[in-house]
């Protein structure tokens, strides 16, 4: 008997691994024209792992504070061995992770995988996207450079627009009435402790739902007999393909980090004007650009209040898609939902392109 099976037997005697074995054998993934999109969930997970690992490495040198935040990041990228690589990978991976999560979300939306009985998987996934964006927003401030300073100022001010509760929440976020180094401390705590803890729990729940319910089959399979449905085993077939994709993503990350290292910019100066060409990260660009188009007043309401309220309502409707989609006849393709989805994608792409000019 070889060594591996001895180890397995030793473990099996103590922990009854047959249950895991059974789950691995039973789990299967539908194979159809759109099954490529299924890989983006796994890619998002992989990028999250990269974020955790590189984030922990950055923690070893990063120091929050007025005189230390920018300087410690500069120290990481200029003095620490491979510090530039770790920081660059962390930044690139954060952006790719959000991109991957967004692709994952739209693929779930267009394949209608959010429908009964997977409503809670959609809600938990939406929460994960919101957490990703909060991760991005809080991490953006940590190098304490000019861009991040003004992005935080504008971003937290948007919260203050919400009637009654907005201003107190903004003060809690900023750790005061303005963006200062006290905000930096708060964002640091949020970014390295609070968000990872919440994210890990929600991610666990999201994965548990998928495990319990199995992977969603396409709508077009509803009336097909079992014999006509094509599946591949999750383990090892799907896992090996997933791992191959992870390897490709890791290579893409390395290429991006080496050839397009993430810039540090200039140190934040709260008493300097906002620099020309300032804009937020690409995933907030469509909202940023939309706010530029809103006039100062619309029917005596401040343009920004109306704009932000509209985005709030749109976000809520998007979150509630399993609820309003279910109002259509069961099994229907619900073209309205498709048109809305295509409209949203086009809107985001066009406004992002205009904002990026």
């Amino acid at each position: 008997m070889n060594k591996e099976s001895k180890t397995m037997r030793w473990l099996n005697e103590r922990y009854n691994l047959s249950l895991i074995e059974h789950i691995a054998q039973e789990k299967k993934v539908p194979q159809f024209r759109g099954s490529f999109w299924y890989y983006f969930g796994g890619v998002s997970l992989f990028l999250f792992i990269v974020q955790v690992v590189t984030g922990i490495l950055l923690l070893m040198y990063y120091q929050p504070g007025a005189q230390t935040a920018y300087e410690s990041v500069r120290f990481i990228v200029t003095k620490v061995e491979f510090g530039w690589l770790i920081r660059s990978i962390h930044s690139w991976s954060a952006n790719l992770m959000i991109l991957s999560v967004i692709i994952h979300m739209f693929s779930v939306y267009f394949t209608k995988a959010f429908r009964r009985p997977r409503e809670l998987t959609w809600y938990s996934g939406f929460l994960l996207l919101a957490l990703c964006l909060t991760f991005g927003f809080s991490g953006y401030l940590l190098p304490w450079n000019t861009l991040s300073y003004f992005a935080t100022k504008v971003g937290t001010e948007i919260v203050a627009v919400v009637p009654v509760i907005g201003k107190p929440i903004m003060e809690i976020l900023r750790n005061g009435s303005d963006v200062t180094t006290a905000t930096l401390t708060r964002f640091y705590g949020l970014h390295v402790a609070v968000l990872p803890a919440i994210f890990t729990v929600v991610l666990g729940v999201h994965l548990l739902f998928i495990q319990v319910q199995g992977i969603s089959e396409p709508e077009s399979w509803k009336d097909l007999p079992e014999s006509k449905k094509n599946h591949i085993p999750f383990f090892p077939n799907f896992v090996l393909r997933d791992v191959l994709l992870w390897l490709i993503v890791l290579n893409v990350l390395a290429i991006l980090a080496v050839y397009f290292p993430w810039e540090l910019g200039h140190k934040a100066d709260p008493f300097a004007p906002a620099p020309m060409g300032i804009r937020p990260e690409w995933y907030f660009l469509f909202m940023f650009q939309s706010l530029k188009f809103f006039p100062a007043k619309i029917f005596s309401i401040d343009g920004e209040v109306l704009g932000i309220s509209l985005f709030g309502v749109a976000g809520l409707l998007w979150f509630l898609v399993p609820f309003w989609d279910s109002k259509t006849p069961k099994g229907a393709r619900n073209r309205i939902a498709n048109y809305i989805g295509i409209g949203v994608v086009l809107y985001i792409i066009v406004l992002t392109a205009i904002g990026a000019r």
Partner: protein
Amino acid sequence: MNVTDTGKMSRRTFLDYLLGFGVVAWLAAVLYPIIDYFKVPPQTEPAPSSVIAGSVKDFKPNSGKVFRFGNEPAILVDTPNGKLEAFSAVCTHLQCTVQYRPDMQKIWCACHGGVYDLNGRNISGPPPRPLAEYKVAVKGDEIIVSKS
């Protein structure tokens, strides 16, 4: 509700309510101090009513400078006519810091493209209100800006 033959609430139901109330009270007792902890205590640092924005010789017509006024940025503009004007440099749209654009002869915000004239009035772009105006006085060589 689980009631006995005599119509009274059973001991079990009563204990369930008591337990539920205990759990809620316990949660409130744990969460209240945590939520309160995040509230920022009032800062005691007094805001100055006037500051020295710079020296007259540092300015020339059609230029501007952002300077610190307490905890906030303010802007001093030497207009093309040579008049000194001062305003809060906090854009009324989403609080970015504005700057003077000599090419436009206007105050401009880089974040969302808001434009103010040299009286601080919002004239184009998304800002909903004018900039807060400050008083400017020259004493000897010093430019003193104060809140009106």
